[in-house]
């Protein structure tokens, strides 16, 4: 086995807010709709309940986010993905579903600091004043798709790995000292 490597090797930047590329993080896309054992599968994989519409349920270093009426994003430590996939397969054995390891398809960033939201406000068509607690927001960062949620005094942002450099550049530029809103 080769060592997992995150997209940017843990790049970071200290502007008026702190930007850190984190990971690698385990991520599983679970697609299922109207299946009876969905709650059991999510519980077994990441230990949370099924998130409500537009919400993310967080339990320690694991989480489950609502992505669409038939899609969930499971987040967990990178090394736990194989076990989680096995747990989902066991729980949904007789039901129609799709569960795929997408860990290496993603890049994950943390934006932290008192004015962290200013960094994102400049990049995303999102009304941050109306964000609700525990909301997972699918949107875009300038020209690329992104999703984020608020936790532990900052924001966790997920993008596709292929655009990790572009997203890091955006975040750095947006976090330049003196450019606070």
């Amino acid at each position, binding site marked *: 086995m080769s060592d997992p490597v995150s997209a940017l090797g843990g790049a970071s930047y200290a502007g008026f807010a702190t930007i850190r590329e984190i990971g690698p993080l385990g991520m599983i896309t679970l697609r299922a709709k109207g299946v009876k054992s969905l709650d059991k599968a999510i519980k077994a994989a990441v230990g949370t309940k099924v998130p409500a519409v*537009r919400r993310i349920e967080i339990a320690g270093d694991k989480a489950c986010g609502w992505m669409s009426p038939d899609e969930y994003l499971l987040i967990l430590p990178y090394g736990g993905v194989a076990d989680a996939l096995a747990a989902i397969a066991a729980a949904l054995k007789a039901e129609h579903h799709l569960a795929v390891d997408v860990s290496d398809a993603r890049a994950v960033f943390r934006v932290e600091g008192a004015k962290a939201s200013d960094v994102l406000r400049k990049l995303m*068509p999102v*009304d941050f004043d*109306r964000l*609700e607690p525990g909301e997972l927001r699918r949107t875009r960062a300038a020209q690329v798709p992104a999703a984020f949620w608020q936790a532990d005094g900052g924001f966790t942002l997920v993008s596709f790995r292929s655009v990790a450099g572009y997203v890091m550049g955006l975040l750095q530029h947006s976090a330049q000292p003196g450019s606070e809103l």
Partner: protein
Amino acid sequence: MRLTCPLCGSRDRREFHYYGAADYLHRPAAEDAPDAWDIYLHLRDNPAGVVRDLWYHELGCAQWLIVTRNTVTHEISGVALVAESAK
């Protein structure tokens, strides 16, 4: 004006594209009489009151929505997914 998308929550009007009356959901069959097609394409009520319109959530979930709106008070009394209503 804000619309509360069933999937995306409360969003600004500018995220949506207006299409027209919800009558567009009831397309006649190809072999139907010209009258049916005439009604479908051209004949609209124009009520001072409650209307049902199709809106597309272009900058959100990309779903078609049926928005129920009162043209007198501008009150929006319902936003539903076309995909769900067709069932």
